[in-house]
């Protein structure tokens, strides 16, 4: 954090001179500058993370989980199964004592089914976990991206322009923070889905994913915006902003080239913390039956399947598979978030 502002201060004294000859040249330096900025931020974070064993471990787990999700279809093909084919034959599922319960050979990990099969439909659990991870993480990452873009731009605009703009935006942020998120998201998701149904976004299994990304993204920006606004309030008084303005840079260009690059540290911290929140939110909504629905798998949907029909009571393994995966993922992201925060924003504390 210490190094970042001085770097951009340097850039900002250089940039306006580059801006005058041609607009092409200036956009070239701007993208080059922001790349350097991003690298220095991540490099700073990496330097600190490397020193802590817990941070390193959580980073490794996060990377492993991402790889697991990305390679999901390949891994599941390697295991010789897919997440949608059901197998209810009596050699797989019990049909005497507890109809639908996998027989012992199929309930737990085996060579044919790496994590056993689902009760009821007999689908391969490993494939569902892998495909589900893809769905869960895609929703969490995309909705985080939506919130981060909205929060950064809106918060920076409020802090930079001040006055009436700030007053109005701040009131809107208060409103967004006052709404009980889960309840609102829960009740608006079916509504949004019925709206999206006839558009390009609303096709097939894409519909619940798109609506979750939109809703979680749209209701998650306010907290970040408030933090960014606070940072920008002090940033805008700094000399390099004045310098850029006096060279004739427009407000928009100052906002996007001088102000926002300087708050990227804080943005990165809150983005890392928003990801586990959104993973939990997806799990919660799908668990409640308004998010991802069967046959599309997601970790929340798998929890929902474990609860429906009380399968988790006769087959606790069916609850443990998505449950442990969720806990490990959220915990790893949370610990990584803590580490990134300690590295980039030592003053901020959670809550």
């Amino acid at each position, binding site marked *: 954090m210490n190094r970042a502002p001085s770097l951009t201060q340097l850039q900002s004294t250089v940039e306006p001179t580059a801006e005058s000859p041609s607009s092409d040249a200036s956009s070239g330096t701007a993208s080059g500058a922001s790349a350097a900025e991003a690298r220095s931020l991540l490099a700073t974070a990496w330097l600190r993370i490397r020193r802590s064993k817990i941070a390193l471990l959580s980073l490794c787990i996060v990377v492993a989980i991402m790889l697991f999700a990305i390679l999901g279809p390949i891994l599941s093909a390697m295991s010789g199964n897919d997440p949608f084919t059901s197998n209810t034959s009596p050699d797989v599922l019990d049909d005497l004592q507890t109809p639908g319960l996998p027989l012992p050979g199929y309930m737990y990990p085996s060579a044919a089914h790496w994590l056993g099969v689902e009760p009821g439909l007999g689908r391969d659990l490993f494939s569902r976990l892998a495909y589900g991870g893809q769905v869960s993480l895609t929703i969490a990452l995309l909705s985080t991206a939506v919130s981060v873009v909205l929060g950064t731009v809106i918060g920076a605009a409020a802090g930079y322009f001040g006055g009436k703009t700030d007053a109005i935006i701040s009131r809107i942020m208060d409103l967004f923070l006052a709404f009980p998120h889960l309840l609102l998201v829960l009740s608006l998701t079916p509504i949004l889905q019925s709206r999206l149904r006839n558009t390009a976004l609303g096709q097939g299994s894409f519909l619940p994913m798109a609506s979750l990304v939109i809703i979680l993204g749209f209701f998650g920006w306010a907290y970040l915006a408030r933090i960014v606004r606070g940072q920008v309030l002090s940033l805008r008084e700094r000399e390099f902003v004045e310098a850029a303005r006096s060279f004739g840079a427009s407000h928009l260009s100052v906002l996007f080239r001088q102000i926002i690059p300087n708050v990227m540290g804080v943005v990165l911290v809150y983005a890392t913390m928003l990801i586990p929140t959104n993973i939990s939110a997806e799990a919660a909504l799908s668990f409640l039956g308004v998010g991802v629905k069967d046959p599309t798998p997601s970790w929340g949907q798998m929890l929902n399947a474990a609860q429906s029909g009380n399968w988790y*009571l006769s087959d606790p393994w069916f609850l443990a598979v998505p449950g442990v995966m969720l806990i490990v993922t959220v915990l790893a992201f949370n610990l990584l978030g803590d580490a990134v925060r300690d590295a980039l924003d030592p003053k901020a504390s959670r809550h």
Partner: protein
Amino acid sequence: MIRFILRRTGSLILLLVAVSFITFTLFQLGPADPASAACGQECTPERIAEARVALGMDHPFFIQYFDYMRGLVSPRMIGAPGAESLCQWPCLGKSFQTNENVSDIIARSLPYTLSMAIGALVLWTITGVGLGLLAALRKGSATDKFIVAAASVGVSLPIPVTGLFLLLVFVNQLHLLPFTTNEINSPFGAQGPWAWVLNYFLPWVALAVLFSAAYIRVTRTNMIETFSEDFIRTARAKGLAPRTVTFKHGVRAGITPVVTMLGMDIGLLLGGAVLTEQIFSVPGLGFTAVRAAISGDLPVTMAITMLAAFFVIVANVVVDLAYAAIDPRVRLQ
């Protein structure tokens, strides 16, 4: 102080009106057609038209909003001309599914939500503040490290997983506790307070695990900060007993952020613990809202969302006022 209270109350009312307006807009303009949701199965175009009139949707949007708000303070007639029925104040409309007054549905669900909130609150405040304080007092020790690690794990436990796990172990396997029943919704009921505690114990634990983790962190950070301040050193130097220094001087000064958090969380929880109520089948506000959201029962979801937002906002203002009463510096800002 009075001006401060007036100013906060003024902005409270503005915020409440804004929240009600936004919720109303989102729900009324949101769905493809509330009328077809209201008319249910076997819908003909004529019945949809009837439903539109019955819902007052033939009126301009602002009139609809105004009518809705008027219903909060005075009784009004709802329904198609000729088939109107009286809706007593506070009128929040009628359920599409059962045609029941939404206010009655809310009144029926509220005791369950209150039962959940009160016990969970007590449980997580005791464990959260207690463990946070213990960690702060033994900063750097193994106890501290263990508590901090436990808090990190606790905050990462999704409620569906903890809730189902608790049910599996304590109800299904060990038979230590009964499965939650709808018959008990207050400690003063026919079966007495002990049955109430047993009935809600697992939901309380599920909520407390998640919430106390945050309280541990905040309490620990604030107490460590407070214990390093000059007035604590002075109190120690005076020769006060360590216990007096810790509780009379330290906790008193360091606990205010926890009070703020507590106020906000009470507000949040009064709107219904959506997931926990769902897992333990407790028919509180959150449970009712989920059912209504899935079946497209708009008046019910809308009213509960509004109510929950009201609780959060009011809690916010109460916390601000309490803070101002405790700490005179706040008023000057």
